């Protein structure tokens, strides 16, 4: 099977593998990770830094830690080009995928290896295929002249097709890594097989969004949230803390119907013609928007036996909302409690809810309302110093499949992905021992700790 090279973004490394694994599931792709370092370490390859890596060499399952911001390249074995392009077409963190022809640390050894291949993989593109060469460089730049000279060195490929800069049938790419921080081979050479949906990060950029609020969620991480929820056509996804709708747009972007609710109806309604609905119109996704309603998760109006394909949420843990309150009281207007009693809408308990209690209620809600294999995708803030794995909420009907972290200075934000176990397996599960954790998790009283930490560092 051919080897492919994934070129990944340099942001949020902890989310890369969970995304790729989820995409493989969505697109029904089978793959095996290949580790270039294993090839280099093997002794028979010492004299020639490139190996005959594909078939005979051992293939190791990759450690998640291998995909780091410092190493944007991953090698993988796939059935064919079609699988490659399908796998990454809706990816946020993969930039491009290439069929790998060879890798090396120097141009000499790269050309030495490629020119001696008994049956070069580009043979089928030699005659009548229009082509071009492209360059991806890290920690270096190549002038046009240098690029031309490098292209000329590939003369042994004997490409006879027309060079087409605009619509080539075939793109050969040299990826050159001169950054001291990036491990692994310095040069990769291959043929481009497909691009991704990374441009969606730009599409959903908050700076260009018609209606945003204080809790609007970053575009890139809203997209990965939708990805982990396996948003796709046919599905119904619900956000119980919808705010200004950040997750709804990205889930609908991938084709799912979306529904949201919030205890504070004002954010959803917006004003001056700007609202969640107007954002759906801006993104031309109104055809995938179901509804929003004002509602309280702890007194949820969804009927008991109603099933969802996924639940996505960033529960309010009081930091951004808290900051807003402080601004109000310092201007001398009113305290949050007075605000509540003066308002025509009701703002019951939720504000006083501990996030740890809220998370507990949320997983119970998810266990009840998720369809079999449906996913709960939940952002959880934790205090880095206090975090332990016991902080992750548990439920016998839900299995934690990913725990990715976005670190900040004294706190972190974790994206937890749970899968609803099929009901055929959980019919006899006892919920009796299901209790709130005896020890207070590190996200308990998060708001107070967050501001204490902020105070400490300033």
């Amino acid at each position, binding site marked *: 099977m051919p080897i492919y090279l994934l070129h990944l973004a340099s942001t949020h490394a902890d989310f890369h593998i969970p995304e790729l694994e989820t995409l493989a599931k969505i697109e029904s792709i089978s793959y095996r990770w290949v580790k270039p370092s294993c090839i280099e370490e093997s002794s028979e390859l010492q004299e020639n830094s490139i190996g005959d890596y594909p078939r005979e060499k051992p293939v190791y399952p990759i450690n998640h830690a291998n995909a780091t911001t410092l190493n944007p390249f991953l090698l993988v074995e796939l059935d064919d080009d079609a699988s490659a392009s399908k796998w990454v077409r809706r990816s946020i963190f993969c930039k491009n995928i290439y069929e790998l022809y060879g890798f090396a640390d120097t141009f000499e050894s790269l050309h030495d290896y490629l020119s001696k291949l008994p049956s070069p993989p580009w043979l089928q593109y030699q005659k009548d295929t229009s082509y071009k060469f492209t360059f991806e460089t890290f920690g270096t730049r190549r002038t046009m002249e240098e690029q031309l000279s490098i292209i000329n060195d590939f003369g042994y490929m004997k490409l006879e097709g027309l060079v087409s800069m605009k619509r080539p049938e075939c793109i050969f790419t040299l990826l050159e890594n001169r950054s001291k921080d990036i491990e692994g081979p310095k040069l990769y050479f291959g043929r481009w097989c497909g691009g991704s949906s990374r441009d969606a990060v730009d599409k959903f950029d908050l700076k260009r969004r018609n209606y945003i609020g204080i809790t609007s969620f970053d575009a890139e991480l809203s997209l990965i949230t939708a990805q982990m929820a396996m948003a796709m056509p046919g599905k119904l996804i619900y956000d119980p803390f919808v705010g200004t709708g950040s997750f709804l747009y990205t889930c609908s972007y991938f084709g799912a119907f979306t529904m949201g609710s919030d205890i504070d109806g004002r954010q959803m309604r917006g004003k001056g013609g700007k609202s969640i609905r107007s954002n759906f119109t801006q993104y031309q996704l109104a055809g995938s928007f179901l509804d929003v309603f004002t509602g309280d998760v702890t007194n949820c109006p969804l009927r008991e036996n109603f099933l969802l394909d996924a639940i996505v949420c960033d529960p309010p843990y009081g930091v951004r909302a808290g900051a807003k309150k402080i601004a109000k009281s310092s201007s001398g207007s009113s305290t949050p409690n007075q605000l509540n009693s003066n308002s025509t*809408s009701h703002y019951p*308990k939720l504000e006083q809810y501990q996030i740890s209690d809220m998370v507990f209620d949320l997983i119970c809600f998810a266990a009840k309302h998720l369809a079999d294999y449906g996913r709960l995708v939940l952002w959880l803030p934790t205090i880095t110093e206090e975090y332990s794995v016991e902080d992750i909420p548990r439920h016998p009907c839900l299995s934690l499949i990913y725990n990715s972290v976005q670190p900040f200075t004294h706190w972190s934000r974790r994206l937890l992905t749970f899968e609803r176990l099929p009901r055929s397996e959980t019919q006899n599960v006892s919920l009796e021992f299901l209790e709130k954790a005896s020890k207070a998790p590190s996200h308990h009283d998060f708001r107070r700790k967050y501001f204490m930490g902020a105070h400490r560092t300033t």
Partner: protein
Amino acid sequence: MKLLTVNFLTCSNKSCSSTAEAFPLKIEDAKLAIQQMELKPEFLRNIIPRVDWNALLISTRQLGNNSLPEEKPELTEESDEVLLKSLHNVLLETEITEAKMTCGNCGHIYPVFEGIPNMLLSEEEI
């Protein structure tokens, strides 16, 4: 609010949600609008099995629509487009912009305003 969503909502009061009287909420004084949407057969095939058909029939009749079949249709890849379109029209293109939705058990009235239902209980009911 789309008619499909009415089928997912019941009274927020926990002591009502298990009673037969609470669901579906009774729709009164409704203002309707038709919002054209692209037909998505895949979504209908996925969601129709999750629709409480009897409740849907009750809701549509409250709105004066008798176009739906008595029995829940089984949608397949081959389902004919006329059926899909009529379901799509009722469930997704029919918007309730203003209404009162009443729980048949406790009598709480949930208002729908500018297409958004307010499902919150009052402080005393919690």
